[in-house]
């Protein structure tokens, strides 16, 4: 099977010299949930925005391969990628409170997606919008269409964002921390919704999160990001069973995993913060926070294949 999304050696730099993404490779298969996990500032959002070609002005992006189906995203002009955005690939964001335009109704903002990509009438667009609002569990969809974003709670707005992303039946949905800004109970509802939609519609879901608990519930595949790199990628089961990178282990110690963490067991935390990495950085960026840091960590770090689909970059795992 061909992947829906294939990225090889993606690099993104900002004018201030930050190397936000360094050599990221990942693949998302049809109907699969692929989680990208890592602390804040690891380059997860920048990776996602690169795919959508939504990087802020001034950012420099390069990749050996960046393919969505048969579309070579590295060679396409933005106005052509725009034809895919909202149609074949869609994205939802972390901030439901500010991601909808305060000046237009929910219905208008949803319908315009279909109008743009399917060239249908406003009435058809609104019908589709109402249908999807029902599908994402919003009651009285007809009434909601005429409402403005400020009349809706955060959880409802995120449901609207999800429904809006589904207007054109996308094949790939990128969700960038869709539940981070929400209350805990609402988080669980939104995750459940995403999971059921993904299964119903056979979506390929690229789910970004900083929470391994979310990964445990959602993912088939996982890429762990640190300081702009994918430091470990594996099948979800393999990752939780045998985390190879010290960073992954550190993250695992921070969260209770259903069935893994005994109730009442104290949770750890990784001391320190994610460093800002400039161009031309060599060595493991995690070494200052790593309990196993060795002199070799200052040099080139080898990429190790532990099994056909379990990779990590660390000096220890090879030995």
């Amino acid at each position: 099977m061909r992947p829906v999304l294939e990225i090889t050696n993606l690099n993104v730099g900002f004018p201030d010299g930050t190397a936000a993404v360094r050599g990221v490779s990942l693949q998302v298969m049809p109907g699969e949930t692929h989680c990208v996990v890592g602390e804040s500032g690891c380059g997860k959002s920048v990776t996602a925005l690169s795919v959508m070609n939504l990087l802020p002005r001034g950012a420099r992006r390069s990749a050996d391969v960046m393919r969505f189906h048969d579309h070579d995203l590295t060679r396409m002009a933005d106005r052509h990628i725009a034809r895919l955005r909202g149609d074949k690939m869609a994205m939802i964001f972390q901030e439901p409170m500010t991601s909808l335009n305060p000046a237009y109704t929910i219905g208008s903002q949803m319908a315009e997606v279909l109008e743009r990509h399917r060239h249908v009438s406003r009435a058809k667009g609104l019908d589709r919008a109402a249908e999807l609002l029902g599908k994402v569990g919003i009651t009285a969809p007809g009434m909601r269409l005429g409402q403005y974003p400020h009349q809706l709670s955060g959880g409802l707005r995120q449901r609207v964002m999800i429904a809006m992303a589904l207007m054109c039946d996308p094949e790939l949905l990128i969700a960038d921390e869709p539940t981070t800004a929400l209350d805990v109970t609402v988080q669980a509802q939104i995750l459940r919704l995403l999971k059921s939609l993904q299964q119903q519609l056979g979506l390929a879901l690229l789910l970004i999160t900083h929470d391994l608990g979310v990964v445990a519930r959602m993912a088939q595949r996982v890429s762990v990001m640190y300081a702009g790199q994918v430091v470990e990628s594996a099948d979800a089961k393999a990752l939780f069973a045998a985390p190879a990178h010290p960073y992954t282990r550190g993250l695992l110690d921070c969260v209770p995993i259903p069935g893994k963490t005994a109730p009442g067991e104290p949770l750890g935390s990784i001391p320190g913060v994610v460093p800002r990495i400039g161009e031309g950085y060599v060595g493991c960026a995690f070494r200052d926070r790593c309990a196993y840091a060795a002199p070799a960590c200052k040099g080139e770090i080898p990429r190790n294949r532990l099994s056909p689909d379990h990779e990590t970059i660390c000096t220890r795992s090879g030995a």
Partner: protein
Amino acid sequence: MRKFLLRRAILAVMVMLTVLVVAFALTRLSGDLAVSIAGPNATAEDVVTIRKNYGLDRPLPAQFVDWAVAAASGDLGRSYLYRAPVWGLIKERLPITVCLGLIGLGFALATAIPLGILAAMREGTLLDRAIGSVTLIGQAMPSFWLGLLLIITFGLKLQWLPISGVDTWDGYVMPGIVLAFSAIPALLRLTRSGMIEALSSDYIRTARAKGLSTSSIVLKHALRNAAMPVVSVAAVQLGFMLGGSIVIETVFALHGVGYLAWESISKNDFPVVQAVVLVLATIYVGLTLLADMMNAVLDPRLRGG
């Protein structure tokens, strides 16, 4: 929303009351208005007669109350010079001034909004800075001087446009441009900053993620949100333009309210001056109220209340 507009309306009434006091006090500044009216060649008896005839011998508070009550009911008094009701004089000339103001505002918006959008879209580039210098030039340009330059160039040298009067529509072009110059800097700056803020907002990222065209993103999604402060300032600027049209009407010999005011000031016809101050202030206050209402229409958050 109702409450919001009601509060603004009450405020407007209070502002108008203050303006009434100021307009009245203004003409009593010289101490003895009768002497000013009579002019330099009048005898002492003339002054006494004038004082009696115009009721200037009565206590100031009584004069004020009489005048304010009359003004509030639409009677703005009689012109000493024209020996006619002031309101009639103003009514005759108001269309020219309002027309000029609207044309000026139209020119200003037609220039400031596209340039502001362009500058915001190209923030930090050479184009942005070039547009920024338009603001600075507009700010430093003395409007009466610009008027004279236009008259020399387009009226006299090229003979494209009439140099004075508004017997034909093209008489409004040059004064409109001059008037627009004074409003462009504020409007352009505001459009630019509003658009920069809007374009960097999350909902614009959403609009781009939906694959919308650039024109829809900029003109529909961003501009709509940047427009609210622009509407307020446009209303205020129109008020300022009407007040400032006194200079331009004099330069281009347009017989509007500004010209009337200038004439009345130089001929000590103070009931007219008072009335023009009052009318312009009323228009200004009305315009700010109108802007509040338009913002309530533009911003659903205000409307929902």
